[in-house]
């Protein structure tokens, strides 16, 4: 074989490869490596998130879509730790970093460094404000408002509400609460007469609600942030007061309680929260960006809603102690991207 023939062959190969790429207009990502940087793993939501990510990632790796998709969690929930973790990932040569951030701003320096090193950064749930990163955000304010909108359809006469908030000083807590107060301003028949911090945990919420209940008038509804509905119900029961309409947050214990109440006395409510599977959506978005797809920097993910009709199916598919979940696919990601364009 002469040199010219070899060159010809190589040129032919290159052309064929070029044609194949032009056909799908997307580049091959089978050599790319993706890492997940996570700041906290200490509750059921984050555990479900990590599991979903592992599932999606290992499938994608064995299908040859990407070369690696490792998950890292910082040992402490601190921005400085996560900044160091991101810098380590740059050193390890990852092509993309998927990020659930400890702080929306304190990681910007590290994120900028990643971008400058040519690494794609996709933040989700806990998003970062650095302009070079992509953001997959949940409209938490809309979620809060939807709770009040739902109450307005069920209780047209209105009444007094109890608000259970999340962890003080966290962005998500502010956003959901803002949405709830917007909703109350719109539906003037409602009035929030009490507000406690339940820290998104059943035990904390139960204690907090039990503490404030004696000082409250009749409550018709409880607006929550997720992870606190079951605790609130227990507190009402212990105080011997009628169970109000409690909006739930997709936790398995909440759904189980709801199903029990429904079977006993026809209890009706709504449950909504962000699905931990959003990590798999972030994975596919990162893959699409690596493949050369034009993706807008700001994407919105819908929240997962459970109604009276879907309760049984959701409860059946949610493991005990976990939270209702959906796993997003490549098609879902493409749909979200197309909607944002």
């Amino acid at each position: 074989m002469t040199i010219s023939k070899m060159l010809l062959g190589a040129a032919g190969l290159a052309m064929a490869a070029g044609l194949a790429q032009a056909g799908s207009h997307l580049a091959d990502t089978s050599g790319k490596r993706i890492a997940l940087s996570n700041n906290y793993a200490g509750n059921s939501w984050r555990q479900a998130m990590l599991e979903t990510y592992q599932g999606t990632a290992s499938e994608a790796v064995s299908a040859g879509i990407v070369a690696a998709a490792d998950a890292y969690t910082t040992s402490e929930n601190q921005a400085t730790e996560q900044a160091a973790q991101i810098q380590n990932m740059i050193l390890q040569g990852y092509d993309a970093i998927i990020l659930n951030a400890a702080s929306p701003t304190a990681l910007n320096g590290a994120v900028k460094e990643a971008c400058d090193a040519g690494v794609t950064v996709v933040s989700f749930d806990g998003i970062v404000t650095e302009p070079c990163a992509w953001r997959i955000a949940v409209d938490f304010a809309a979620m809060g408002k939807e709770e009040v909108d739902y109450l307005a359809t069920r209780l047209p006469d209105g009444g007094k509400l109890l608000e259970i908030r999340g962890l003080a000083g966290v962005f998500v807590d502010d956003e959901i609460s803002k949405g709830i107060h917007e909703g109350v301003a719109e539906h003037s028949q409602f009035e929030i007469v009490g507000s406690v911090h339940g820290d998104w945990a059943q035990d904390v919420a139960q204690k907090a609600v039990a503490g404030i209940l004696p000082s409250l008038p009749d409550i018709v509804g409880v607006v929550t942030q997720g992870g606190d509905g079951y605790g609130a119900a227990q507190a009402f029961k212990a105080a011997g007061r009628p169970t109000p309409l409690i909006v739930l947050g997709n936790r398995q214990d909440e759904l189980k309680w709801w199903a029990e109440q429904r079977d006993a006395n026809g209890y009706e409510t709504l449950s909504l929260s962000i699905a931990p599977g959003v990590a798999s959506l972030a994975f596919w978005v990162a893959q699409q960006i690596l493949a050369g797809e034009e993706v807008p920097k700001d994407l919105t993910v819908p929240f997962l809603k459970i109604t009276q009709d879907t309760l049984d199916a959701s409860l059946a598919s949610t493991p005990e102690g976990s939270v209702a979940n959906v796993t997003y696919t490549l098609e879902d990601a493409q749909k979200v991207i197309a909607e944002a364009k």
Partner: protein
Amino acid sequence: MTALARYRIILPVVSLAVLLAATFYMQPRAMSYFGLNLLFNLAVPIALATIAQMMVIMVNDIDLSLGTFVSLVACITATFLHDTPLLGAAMLLALILSYAALGALIHTLELPAIVVTLGMSFVWGGLALFILPSPGGTSPVWLRTLMTVKPPFVPMAVVASVIIAAVTHLLVIRSGIGTVLRGVGGNARSVARAGWPLVRLKALAYGLCGLFGVLAGMALVGLTTSADANIALRYTLLSIAGVILGGGEFIGGKVSPTGAVIGALTLTLAASFLSFMRLSPDWQIGAQGAILILVLTARLIFSRKGSVA
């Protein structure tokens, strides 16, 4: 004693070198200008915080408010120092002075420093939340430029560490006042008998702690570009560990500024090393603790041998 003094600095250097070699082996990419900077740039604020903690440990006290203090400084730097530089600088100066006043207060009223600083940590934390209720702010441009400067041959993180170590070495070990300050930790009564006003010396030590705490907060904002009221909470314990890892002791004014800087670098590197090892996060804190205990045990063995010899 000479052997002991020599071991005091050898051990931190050896632990850093071993860890560095292991990291390079695991991740050869780290062995570059760019890599070294990424590995160590977040160690610069920790090194400054460790020096701050050392100033207090030097006079036999301990500062449990350093993490929240650095967070507060970070919040002021990202807001006031950026928007109204003069007011911001005045606030930072006031913080240093209040630290000095705190030292005087602790000495005059004979209060335990551990309790006062624990109390102050809530004050600093509250102020930080008050100034920056939700994460944000912007780093002053000059500070960002300073922290991302690219000197020839050696990365910024290494240059900064060397400068910090050299300056504090001159200040604490070489200068006259540094010797007297270490004397306060060694034997306060004889320092007082020699005619030194203890109140002022304590105030000076705490003031220096405040100064380096402020520098740590500013350096941190220069790296992260913005602040968060909880940004540096870990620095309290990291700084104490750094001082001890670097050959310092809780009592007796036995401290080593160079060692403290090396201790801070070692702690930072240990975390990266564990992450390169792909160790599960559940085990990482434990492993970090194990490294700390390992080094301290080695030090104890060495110093025992040293004092016997």
